[in-house]
């Protein structure tokens, strides 16, 4: 007993030394095979890193069950793998420890409203399989201020939270647009909103989805206007460790499956009936009636049908979590509607 534990301590120390001295990333994988999928199957559950509390995207409800847009993505992947939405463990992560949690293998994937950027994709060692939500930084002002575009904010005081890219985007935009402003920097969301509502600043800036959520929570939402200007691109999506293509493919096609299901009108309510009756070849391939798309992904042929039966399609997930907090479809509408950008490659 003692022998074993001492042995493992030495092994641990040795591995730590090797990892740090040779700068060998702990997540480096040999080509071929999927260690992540193997580990998930051996464990019997998917471990998914989520936000520790963000309205609409991931938050525990009064009973302590995780709910939200990102949470449903985790559940969808779990259903694809295990045919069981409960075979997933949610690890709440903060903005500071989310990347380490993924790098060190504490979580298998992150679905945590994380912006896809070049540096995160390359030097941090991640892959962003899909963009589940197109977001961007915007401004909200009181309607009584009479401001219609962001450029009219010259000389205004703007409430902003520190730390994330929000503050940086604001400064870069202001310099480019030759707008001078006074930043009012407040850490906590609730306090910065309180300051804005109390009139300590003329405008409040954060991602448009966040602005919509804040606006809908006010006693009189009509008293606030979200300006049309969007000053940054914030494509949010799930991310996985770089180098495990099989798992990345599964996460990517889970997202595409949800989007394509909305495009073809497959919903949680009618998925059974469409599997049985719909004659369109692509629908038959998606739902596993013909072809072996599931096998190519390494999952059950009926994987997508089960996901849709449980979580609904992309539009249903959106309507369940994001529409109630006042977020419009906007750029997240299907590509078939004007301004929509959600697009899925063909299932064949």
């Amino acid at each position: 007993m003692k022998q074993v534990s001492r042995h493992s301590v030495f092994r641990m120390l040795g591995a730590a030394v090797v990892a740090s001295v040779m700068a060998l990333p702990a997540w480096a994988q040999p080509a071929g095979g999927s260690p992540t999928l193997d580990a998930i199957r051996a464990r019997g559950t998917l471990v998914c890193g989520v936000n520790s509390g963000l309205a609409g995207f991931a938050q525990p409800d009064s009973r302590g069950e995780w709910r939200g847009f990102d949470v449903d993505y985790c559940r969808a992947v779990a259903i694809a793998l295990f045919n069981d939405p409960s075979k997933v463990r949610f690890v709440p992560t903060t903005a500071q420890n989310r990347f380490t949690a993924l790098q060190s293998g504490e979580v298998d994937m992150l679905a945590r409203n994380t912006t896809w950027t070049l540096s995160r994709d390359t030097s941090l060692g991640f892959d962003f399989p899909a963009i589940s939500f197109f977001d961007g930084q915007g401004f909200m002002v009181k309607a009584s201020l009479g401001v219609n575009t962001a450029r009219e904010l010259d000389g205004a005081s703007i409430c902003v939270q520190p730390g994330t890219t929000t503050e940086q985007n604001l400064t870069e935009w202001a310099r480019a647009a030759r707008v001078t402003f006074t930043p009012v920097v407040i850490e906590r969301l609730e306090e910065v909103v309180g300051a804005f509502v109390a009139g300590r600043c003329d405008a409040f800036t954060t991602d448009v989805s966040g602005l919509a959520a804040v606006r809908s929570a006010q006693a009189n939402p009509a008293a606030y206007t979200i300006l049309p200007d969007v000053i940054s691109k914030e494509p949010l999506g799930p991310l996985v460790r770089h180098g495990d293509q099989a798992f990345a493919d599964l996460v990517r096609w889970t997202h595409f499956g949800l989007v394509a299901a909305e495009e073809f009108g497959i919903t949680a309510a009618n998925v059974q009936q469409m599997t049985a009756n719909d004659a369109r070849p692509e629908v038959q391939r998606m739902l596993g009636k013909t072809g072996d798309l599931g096998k190519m992904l390494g999952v059950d042929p009926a994987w997508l049908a089960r996901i849709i039966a449980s979580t609904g399609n992309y539009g249903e997930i959106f309507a369940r979590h994001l529409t109630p907090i006042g977020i419009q479809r906007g750029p997240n509408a299907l590509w078939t509607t004007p301004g929509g950008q959600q697009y899925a490659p063909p299932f064949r």
Partner: protein
Amino acid sequence: MSDITVNTPLTSGSEHRAAPISAIGPVAWLRENLFSGWLSTAVTLVLGYLIIRAVMGFVDWAFINAIWSVPLNANGVAQTQACRELHGSGACWAVVTEKHRFMLFGTYPYEQHWRPAVVCLLFIGLFIVSAMRRFWNWTLIPIWMVTLTAIGMLMWGGVFGLPFVQQERWGGLPITLILSTFGLAFAFPLSILVALGRRSNLPAIKVLCVVYVELIRGVPLISLLFMASVMFPLFLPEGMNIDKLLRAQIAIILFAGAYLAEVVRAGLQSLPKGQYEAADAMGLSYWQKTGFIILPQALRMVIPPLVNTFIGFFKDTSLVLIIGIFDLLTAGKTAIVEPAWQGFGVEVYIFVGLIYLVFCFAMSKYSQGLEADLNRHRRR
């Protein structure tokens, strides 16, 4: 032999005088302290008015105008319009009614909430038993071991038909109690060793202890938690994960140990040198001297700063919010993330604050009693 009988008047011949102006009792106290002059009277009246206004305002807000529950709609979303229409004139305790189980137990499976509830009671029982002097002997060790095993079995489950619950689903009050109890229970013995080591004559041990204390005290707790949470996992081989809670727990133990060590060292240094010399003269070994002569006196001396540090650390455990652990305060903050409940932070913070107050006040009162009890020989 005296001729003074019971009925003999003591002051014969003088008249009855009026009773003196009362110098004791509440009326006299009021006259002395609050209404001793016109300025004092004015200040008393103004302050009294302000206090009564504030108390009445609070009672109005917290009780008379308060809303205690709101209906849920078909989707289970709370209808908080009634609360919002108060515009701050009354408390919306409905947020506590709706969310109290989440705040107390976090994301622990709802049907199993009785388990963390029992764990909290076990912790409180453990504190009470440990505080009673009649248990201050070897029986305390098995009591702690049995209780902690029971707590572990209840929280994790997986035995006796209890479903297994992963650590990341733990939350709320049990997390706060676990972090602070284990933190202080391990940090205290560690701190005594470090304090003794720092006063040791052996240079290697002394340097080691000084370096430990100064290194840990030189960085904020938040950066230690970051190290434990963010950097440490990167040094482990893939697939090997030390529990997030355990990592935070070790960081807290190391941090509390360094601070407590300095408190204990203050006690050691306050003892007169004669105590050490007398013990040496009696031929006691180092450990006998330390255990029987030095520590009992030194620790008794530093009870107030020790409890001060204890209370501080009980509250400092809430810093684990930065690494995504739902302790009591974080669970409270997360409860008001939901849009329906945004803006009712005051009610939630009062609820959480009351729980902290109960624990910290109990610690404070107990230490006062203990101090008076143990230092009885010094009282004059």
